[in-house]
C-alpha cells in the first residue's frame, strides 16, 4: 500500500475508489498522488470542522475531554498507589493528599467523564455526506 492509499483511508470508501482510480488513470504516482489525496482529505476535514463549529456537542466534548484526561492520569496513579499502599508510609501518603476514599471518588468521576465523552461521540446521528 502506497502513501496515497494510506491517506485515502480517511475518505468514504466509495469516494476513495473513485479518487484512487482517477489518480491511476491520470498516471499520478508517488508524492504527486499523495499530495492530491492529502489535499482532498484536508478539504473534507476543514468542511467537517466548519459545519461542526456551531455544534454545542463539539465544545461540550472538548470541555469534558481535558478534565477527563487529567482525571484518567490521576486514576492510573491512584490505582497503582492503592495496589501498593502497604509499601508506603501512610503519613507520607496523607501528606501528599492521598486517601483511598478520595482515590476511589476520583476513579468514579473519571469514569463518569469518559462515559459522557463516549456518549457525546456516539450520539452523532449525522450520515456521511458522500
Amino acid at each position, binding site marked *: 500500500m502506497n502513501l496515497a492509499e494510506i491517506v485515502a483511508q480517511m475518505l468514504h470508501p*466509495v*469516494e476513495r*475508489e*473513485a*479518487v*484512487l*482510480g*482517477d*489518480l*491511476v*488513470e*491520470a498516471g499520478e504516482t508517488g508524492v504527486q498522488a499523495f499530495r*492530491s*489525496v492529502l*489535499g*482532498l*482529505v*484536508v*478539504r*473534507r476535514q476543514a*468542511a467537517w470542522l466548519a459545519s461542526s463549529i456551531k455544534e454545542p456537542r463539539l465544545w461540550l466534548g472538548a470541555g469534558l475531554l481535558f478534565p477527563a484526561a487529567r482525571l484518567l492520569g490521576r486514576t492510573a496513579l491512584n490505582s497503582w498507589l492503592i495496589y501498593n499502599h502497604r509499601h508506603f508510609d501512610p503519613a507520607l501518603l496523607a501528606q501528599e493528599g492521598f486517601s483511598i476514599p478520595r482515590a476511589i471518588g476520583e476513579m468514579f468521576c473519571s469514569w463518569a467523564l469518559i462515559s459522557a465523552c463516549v456518549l457525546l461521540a456516539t450520539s452523532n446521528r449525522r450520515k456521511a*455526506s*458522500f
Partner: protein
Amino acid sequence: MLGEFEYLLLSAAARLGENAYGAAIREEIEAATGKPCSIGALYTTLDRLEAKGLIQTWTGDASAQRGGRARRMVRVNAQGIEQATAFYNAVMRVSRGVSWSSI
C-alpha cells in the same frame, strides 16, 4: 449564481455527456484553463453542486485502465443547465463592449 469553478465543472460535464466522470472532467478543465485542477477542488465542488441539486452522481463501472476501481459518474440536471446558461449569459452581457486586448 454559480462560482467560476462550478461553471467550469458544469460545462466540462455537459460537454462530456455520458462519459463525464472525475478524471475526464479534470482533464477537460485542465485543457481549457491550462492550469492544474486539484482532485480536492474537483470532488468538493462535485459534492457542492450535487447538494445544490445541479448535478447527479453515481458509481460507474470499474475498468482495468483505472486499476479495477470504479468511476464517479456525473450528469448535469435541468437545473444545472439553467444555472450554467444564466452564468454564461451574465458573462456575455457584462463583457459586451469590453476589449481586453486594448486594456
